[in-house]
């Protein structure tokens, strides 16, 4: 919070208007690349890190995993539906891939992990010395034995978080699913396990059928809905988590414009993740940053001052 009322940009510190510190990570802006999007290759992570405040790599597990057959993503007028199936080269190959980020990355790197047990989760962290933080995928809605399968049981969530925390000194984020009766219950369990921040939310279970061929459009039949369609759903989760939890909330779900970023921050998000919006524009981070600079200039408030403002407003 700024003590003085003179806006930062007047004091020649316009770049500070967007800066945010998230669990010790210094981020030039609150915009993070969401996991699973463009996150399999270090080259795209490096490229995106030029403008993004942080990048989250695609979820990785202990073993290589092929994922589902194509089609794994379909778009519709209001977003995307995907069932990629956590395709991953496995922990060793991926750690090697990410090594180059150390030299060339321009913002913090978050490594997303999936696993079936707390031990398996914890075994992954030592492989990633280049990671600045870890995100636990407790929420992929379309894979067996991982993701939501482990992330909808509060006890298990608490145990996983605690075990991972013991394995690393780096911040640990828990990415939650909206496909539960009460996201706050899961968030609280993660908090009790010692999580540093929660990420809300992963995709919403959904599917689409082609009426000409009369077949589901995804090879996996169903998948997870992302994009603008789910923005109000994600926002509600962020609102509730901000109200009930003490740890920071990272908002994700349908954020496409700078207005969406502000909306999530007002609801309580310290940072936000951008995923499906890359479908609309690969310059999304650059354009969001420029728009947010203009917005903070117009209001004279830095973004961190706005976190949760709609609760008290």
């Amino acid at each position: 919070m700024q003590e003085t009322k003179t806006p930062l940009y007047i004091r020649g510190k316009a770049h500070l208007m967007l800066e945010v510190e998230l669990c010790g990570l210094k981020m030039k802006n609150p915009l993070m690349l969401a996991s699973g999007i463009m996150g399999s290759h270090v080259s795209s992570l490096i490229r995106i890190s030029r403008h993004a405040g942080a990048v989250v790599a695609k979820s990785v597990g202990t073993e290589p995993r092929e994922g589902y057959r194509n089609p794994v993503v379909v778009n519709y007028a209001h977003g995307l539906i995907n069932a990629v199936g956590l395709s991953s080269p496995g922990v060793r190959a991926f750690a090697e891939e990410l090594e180059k980020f150390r030299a060339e990355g321009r913002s913090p790197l978050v490594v997303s992990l999936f696993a079936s047990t707390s031990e398996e989760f914890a075994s992954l962290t030592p492989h990633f010395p280049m990671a600045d933080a870890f995100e636990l995928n407790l929420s992929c809605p379309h894979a067996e034995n991982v993701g939501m399968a482990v992330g909808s049981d509060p006890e298990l969530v608490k145990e996983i978080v605690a075990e991972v925390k013991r394995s690393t000194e780096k911040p640990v984020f828990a990415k939650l699913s909206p496909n539960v009766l009460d996201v706050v219950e899961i968030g609280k369990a993660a908090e009790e396990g010692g999580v540093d921040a929660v990420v809300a939310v992963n995709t919403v279970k959904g599917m689409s059928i082609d009426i000409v061929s009369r077949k589901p459009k995804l090879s996996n039949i169903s998948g997870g809905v992302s994009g603008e369609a789910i923005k109000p759903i994600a926002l509600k989760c962020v609102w509730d988590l901000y109200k009930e939890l003490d740890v920071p909330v990272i908002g994700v779900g349908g954020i496409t414009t700078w207005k969406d970023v502000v909306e999530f921050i007002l609801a309580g998000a310290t940072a936000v993740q951008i995923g499906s919006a890359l479908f609309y524009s690969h310059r999304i981070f650059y354009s969001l940053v420029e728009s947010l600079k203009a917005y903070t200039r117009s209001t004279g408030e830095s973004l961190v001052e706005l976190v949760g403002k709609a609760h008290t407003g």
Partner: protein
Amino acid sequence: MYCVRVEKVVKHSKDVATIVFDGILPSYPGQFVMLNLFGYEEIPLSLSSPRSVTVKAVGETTRALVDISPGALVGIKGPMGNPFTPAEGKALLVAGGIGIAPLLYLHDYLIAEGVEVHVFYGARNADEIVCLERLKSYEVATDDGSAGFHGNVVELAATKDLSSYRKIYACGPEPMLKALYKLLNERELLNRAEFSLERYMKCGIGVCGSCVLENGLRVCVEGPVFSAAKLEW
């Protein structure tokens, strides 16, 4: 995704066929579609005309597609991706193997625009050379010498004066494109060239990140056609 019906299948050889749809897909040469062969996979394919793809059987899905029956439905996403940019005057097309597919579309498009088009078309052997009847002016190269120039298509190109071509378009295997890059770089013609690249592609719409290049750009969205000068090879 929407469905189109296969109207006609033109077999060029045992392994190569042109699948003609029952309607035109509004598109430009160089664009691709994600074609979903139901029961198999969804795969990226360059359009070989506004209403067709030309496919070589290299795996289970492409094999089934080459053998598809007229009347079958296939799912389509697109056309997508950046097309070739048009030329004026004289244009050269350099094709390697099934890389001829998008160049067939470009060939017809440029001819219709009044461009003078010449094609260098290389393949392993004479059997793999297809659709020559669609080309107005061409030279063929084969690795085994079974047709035309004995050698690869870049070796053929190297024997020529290329400086009169205002644009040079190429599509083919990456080693071929890299060799062509080197040749054009030596001749200081790189800024006239556009290459259509291939990468393992899953979503086709820019989110999965399967097809990113070493420079972080995506073949499906920032490509598949790139200015050769920007490739930093």
